[in-house]
């Protein structure tokens, strides 16, 4: 179980490398999005490990927040307004 959490943290470090290094703004946005999905997986594994049910609520909230942020930045890059 702890080995799985360490492997997911390694993936989050890969995403952090791309977010610091990335040549364009979309690289940074997509790597932060992927990183928050990885954090969702880590939170779900911690809920399974310590048997705490409300950590799963935290996982759902992280997924919703990353989706909304990526959607807003994508619409901003396209150059339209948000209500279109």
């Amino acid at each position: 179980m702890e080995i799985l959490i360490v492997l997911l943290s390694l993936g989050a470090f890969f995403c952090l490398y791309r977010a610091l290094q990335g040549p364009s703004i979309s690289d940074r946005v997509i790597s932060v999005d992927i990183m928050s999905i990885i954090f969702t997986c880590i939170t779900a594994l911690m809920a399974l490990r310590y048997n705490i049910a409300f950590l799963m609520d935290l996982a759902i909230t992280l997924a919703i927040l990353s989706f909304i942020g990526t959607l807003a930045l994508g619409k901003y890059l396209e150059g339209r307004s948000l209500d279109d």
Partner: protein
Amino acid sequence: MINLLGWIFIVIGVCFALLGCLGLVRFPDLYNRMQAATKGVTLGACGLMFGIFLLKGFSVMGIKALVCALFILLTMPVAAHVLSRGSLFFGIKMWHKTELDKFGPDKVGKELIEKPDSEATDEKA
């Protein structure tokens, strides 16, 4: 038996998520990186949540894991599509070995495939 199946799902999910993050580092182009990362990590996260659902059954944690898996499965491709379309109109270049650009310069208004000599200077830097 169903415990073993759940653990197999969790391990497969972690492997797919790790390979997706490795693709985010190694691919040459924004669009290649985006398809590798979103496909791999979506399948990995859904497998992990489904494994937790198999382990926990119809308890509080299992139902929440199933809801989280469905949400990620529905929203991750939408977010990736919106971001890639936005960066296409924003004018981010493709890789210089890209052969087919079906969206084309006539819809976007500019040439998006990168010139090879600028890529060579990019690789040195």
